[in-house]
């Protein structure tokens, strides 16, 4: 812990960064995101086993951007988020200082995108086995059963948009859901409105989701939203050979054409 605090204090003091995005103790036993701009704030930073949130989503927030050059305490999902954001021209090389939390509790500095790419190339970025099982269970269902399953889940949705706020890839100034001229997606949190919203979000994340799971973590109604986007990861990998968030200069699988692309999905 002191290693982290010392490092961040030093970074803030020598103006390498203006703000460090890490974790601090919240109310009760909870951990929350922290935005340290001074040595005093840095002193409150913690890093424990509970610090699992993907903090990269904050890089895109208007309020955080205003604070200046950011440093970020990153896990694997955050590294991938940064790569995906870079491929979408949202962050530039050298604009983010990344401190990566290793499994053994030590920290590694990533100062360039190339070093992040090299690290990710040797890391398992797959979906966790328990999540894998749930996806297998969903895929084993008949279309009718799956439809009922999701309808039942979406029925719980209160359209608080916490999933959208937590997702590092939902950085649009104005989400399609909020576009009301014309209003394709109903605002109301009824059955169809909820379905439209979640399908739209899943489609917008196809080939971009870095399986951090923040959408499901954020959901106050415990909807397993991550499964919806995770299910799109394998088909895109198998069809186009693309995995999101691995390279800073990747081109989006669904916007590019290669002559050897599989076309077996065309009926």
């Amino acid at each position, binding site marked *: 812990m002191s290693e982290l605090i010392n490092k961040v204090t030093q970074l803030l003091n020598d103006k390498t960064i203006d703000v460090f995005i890490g974790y601090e103790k919240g109310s009760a036993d909870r951990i929350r995101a922290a935005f340290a701009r001074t040595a005093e704030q840095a002193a409150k930073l913690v890093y424990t086993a509970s610090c699992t949130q993907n903090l990269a989503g904050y890089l895109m927030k208007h309020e955080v951007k205003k604070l200046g050059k950011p440093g970020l305490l990153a896990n694997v999902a955050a590294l991938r988020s940064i790569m995906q954001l870079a491929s979408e021209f949202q962050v530039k090389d050298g604009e983010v200082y990344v401190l990566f939390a290793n499994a053994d509790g030590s920290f590694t500095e990533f100062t360039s995108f190339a070093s992040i790419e090299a690290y990710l190339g040797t890391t398992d970025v797959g979906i966790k086995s328990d999540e894998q099982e749930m996806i297998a269970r969903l895929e084993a269902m008949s279309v009718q059963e799956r439809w009922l399953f999701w309808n039942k889940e979406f029925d719980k949705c209160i359209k608080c948009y916490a999933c959208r706020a937590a997702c590092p890839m939902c950085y649009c100034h104005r989400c399609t859901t909020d576009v009301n001229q014309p209003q394709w997606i109903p605002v109301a949190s009824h059955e169809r409105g909820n379905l439209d919203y979640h399908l739209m979000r899943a489609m917008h994340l196809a080939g971009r989701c870095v399986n951090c799971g923040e959408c499901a973590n954020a959901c106050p109604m415990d909807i397993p939203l991550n499964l919806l986007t995770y299910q799109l990861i394998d088909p895109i990998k198998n069809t186009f050979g693309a995995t999101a968030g691995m390279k800073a200069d990747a081109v*989006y699988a669904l916007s590019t054409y290669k002559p050897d692309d599989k076309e077996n999905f065309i009926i």
Partner: protein
Amino acid sequence: MSRIGVFVCHCGENISATVNCEKVAKITGELKGVEFATDYKYMCSDPGQTLLKEAIKEHKLDGVVVAACSPRMHEPTFRKACAEAGLNPFLCEMSNIREHCSWVHPKDDLTTEKAQDLVRVMVEKVKKNKALNSIKVPVTKTALVVGGGIAGIQAALDIANCGHKVVMVERQPSIGGHMSQLSETFPTLDCSQCILTPRMVEVAQHPNITLYTYAEVESVDGFIGNFTVKIRKKSKSLDEHICTGCGLCTTKCPQKKIPNEFERGLGFRPAIYVPFPQAVPNKPVIDRENCTYYIKGKCKVCEIVCPVKAIRFDQEDEIIEVPVGAIVMATGFDVLKPDFFPEYGYGKYKDVIDGLAFERLASASGPTQGEIRRPSDGQVPKKIVFVACAGSRDPAKGIEYCSKICCMYTAKHAMLYKHKVHDGTPYVFYMDIRAGGKNYEEFVRRAIVEDETHYIRGRISTIYEKNGKLIVKGADTLMGAMPIEIEADMVVLATAGVANHGAEELAQTVHISYDPYKFFAEAHPKLKPVETNTAGIFLAGACQAPKDIPESVAAASGAAVKVASLFSKSELTRDPLVAVVNRQPAPVYSQCVGCFLCQSVCPYQAIEREEIKNRNGEVIKTLARVNEGLCQGCGTCVALCRTKAIDIHGYSNQQVYTEVMALLND
């Protein structure tokens, strides 16, 4: 409140036979915002258009819906009529009640109701239409001609003679193409070289034509009137400006046994070579794959003997960039490869050759100085079997089309043979004789009657060698499929004309479409035969389909006229139905977040980056911007844009939504 006019066309009986047009006009006339509605027998006729124009003026219409045929047919007609009446043409829409309604449904009340629905949808759309202005783009008055065969030569000369600059790119060391390989040409039997070479020289000397031989198109960017072409000038390994074309190097080159492509492998050439004596430019190139110096690292005989020291072994490929306004594709064709006919022994027996090889044998400048001698032993063949349709019209082999030129050149070959070997016997196996064309049938008749060519209707099953003879087995289908066996000295296959090698890659580089046989596709088989679906790119000659010389020349002149008419104006006008990135007041500037997924998806490279800067010159935001000249309005970017920051003029998100809702909220 809108003041929309609805004009329902009967299209004679095309619409009115199944749709009650009067009723459609009456019902839609009652819609909110519709000021005037009527029906008329032929809206596209002169009185029909006058009716429309009068109504616009009289009722002060601010939107028009013409319910008639497909907009592909008459949208330009009615938009022009609206413009003439003072209404912005893009406030006029067509509702297709013919192809989408009357033609596909029986006479019924439901059919009329559907027509009403279709009109209502358009009325709602027109309410959201905006007046748009045509886009003007400048034109670079230089044409690129790809390919220097007879079609390319003709197109280049025609364009250059109109006073425009032409850049010609030919991948071989010389222009001339297949025509330079031919001996005589049908149906007049005039010498191919004699009529071609003056034109080749004219190309080289024309002040408006810049010729790049041994060069290929590397990339094409841009759009009609404003293409940027990168040309790879392959290294010729010599300085063309110094080389005098004396030819000393070609005679001294120790590497002499390279099969000569120009002679279809019937002769040999050195590693530094000029493809044929009349080549333009008449300067050699080094074939690096076969040159001893490039293989073994020593030799350099050509450099030693060159009197002007023009050889440059270290010369590299050069890529030049040329701005052009139009492109003519004249890349020609190829003939089938030997492995296509194992049963004919082509490639296995030396005396089974293709038509182009026979042209070389018959040519005065060929490997035998025009004497017909078979490749295996140099004997004069006394019996030659000519096989028409070798590969063509053979669905089993994947070529279903007729190569078109083979019937004629086979007749020519038989004649040339007979004229040179008076005691020889030519046989022609054919499926049908297709001799449509001026003086063509008479020509074939002459081959049969005067030159005593034996025409046998039937196909060949197999050819094999026995005692120095080629045994040709076939059947005569006019004699009840009677088996026929001929002991021939030589067999000439009229191999199918196929797309040139590399045609598919080139089409993708240039961004034009091609057919399943990799021939370049025309925009319309009848009415736009020399245009492609890419504006500003035209086709000439056999790159489109097998064509004979007159047809190639005619197509080339046609393409040249298209280029000249494009260059007749200094600006192009085009429909403003293009994508646009929305703009908003600061601090948002636009809904666009600059993810640029639109940039990679755009098939026309029409998305650019625009930097929003503050007054200190600092970049605050980077947005997508649509190049109106490049955008074709396909809408792919719109589909991919997550924030709905891109929209298409004339087919906006709002308009489509309105149309859908008009149907749903009936």
